């Protein structure tokens, strides 16, 4: 096989990306004793004990369930409210549309740190503190604007004649939207779901501020265990590997749309 220059570049780059992940995997399959006392490139005594700890200890696995719960809630809410809004932005001009769009964008850009404290007080005062829905709603802050932005990009790619033809054929708006329009931008919806999942899944600051026990996400479980129980490196590494798995699965499903999706449908 001929080795080309760009093949070499890609190989080096992917190596650079994969090495830290491999190291995490490597550590997750070792015992703590081995991690601290001997240095090896692969596990000498292969052990799955770290993973067993996570799957049997409720304080660990409930973290995953909590995270998945609020991430899914957030994805559904974001898409449901963003679909009609994106349609409005891509098809119509209305009073203050540009300013509204700009205001939405600034929320995507706003630092969560600014909102952490008022969120804490707001959700406490309406009795939502430490629930899944609180985190899901808080993550809407940056996911809804992003969803509108991406969907608008995809919808603008659908010719307007399709809408007009459908209305002439006697379709009502809802029927047209669900039967004809949504299948046309199915890939766009998939990409949005992927992004909402991704940003809600990786976010820690708000999720940690808004939960304490019942809805504690896995990310928070990890940081708190680090400080409390000394350094249980093996379990920490195993927990890290398990947080990568859902992302890897999701990315596999949308692999054909990744590039276009990251460009927000704007190429």
């Amino acid at each position, binding site marked *: 096989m001929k080795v080309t220059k760009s093949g070499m570049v890609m190989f080096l780059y992917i190596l650079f990306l994969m090495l830290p992940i491999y190291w995490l995997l490597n550590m997750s399959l070792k015992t703590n004793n081995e991690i601290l006392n001997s240095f090896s490139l692969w596990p000498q005594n292969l052990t799955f004990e770290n993973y067993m700890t996570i799957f049997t200890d409720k304080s660990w696995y409930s973290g995953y369930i909590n995270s998945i719960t609020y991430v899914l809630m957030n994805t559904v809410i974001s898409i449901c409210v963003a679909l009609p809004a994106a349609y409005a932005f891509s098809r119509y001009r209305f*009073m*203050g549309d540009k*300013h509204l769009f700009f205001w939405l964008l600034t929320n995507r850009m706003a630092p969560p740190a600014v909102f952490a404290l008022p969120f804490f*007080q707001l959700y*406490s*005062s*309406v009795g939502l503190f430490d629930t899944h829905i609180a985190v899901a709603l808080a993550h809407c802050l940056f996911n809804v604007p992003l969803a509108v932005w991406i969907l608008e990009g995809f919808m603008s790619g659908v010719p307007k004649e399709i809408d007009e033809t459908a209305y002439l054929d006697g379709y009502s708006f809802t029927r047209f939207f669900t039967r004809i329009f949504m299948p046309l931008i199915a890939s766009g919806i998939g990409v949005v779901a992927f992004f909402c999942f991704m940003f809600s899944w990786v976010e820690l600051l708000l999720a940690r501020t808004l939960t304490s026990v019942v809805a504690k996400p896995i990310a928070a479980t990890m940081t708190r265990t680090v400080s409390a129980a000394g350094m249980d490196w093996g379990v920490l590494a195993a927990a890290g590997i398990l947080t990568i798995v859902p992302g890897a699965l999701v990315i596999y499903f949308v692999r054909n749309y990744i590039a276009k999706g990251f460009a927000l449908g704007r190429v």
Partner: protein
Amino acid sequence: MDLAWMGWTWQTGAFFGSIVLALIGMTIFSIKYPQSPKMGILRFETTPGDRLFMSLLGSAFICLGWLAMFGSPLWWALLVCCIYAFCVFRWV
């Protein structure tokens, strides 16, 4: 729902009230006298709403700069803000 934690005082109420009034005012104004966007010295199109936004944002930075350099009171900074806002509406 108890809103005491938000800590309202009449000063902040007045601040938000004036912003809401400005928004309503601009909306009515743009319905009554529709204006096409104009091209200013910064080489992009602005509507009166954009110019209002730019004046407010710029004024906030002028006041912050004033606080950093001279400290309170802000009366003189307010004068600078007014001149700045006038310039934005006139030329941008």
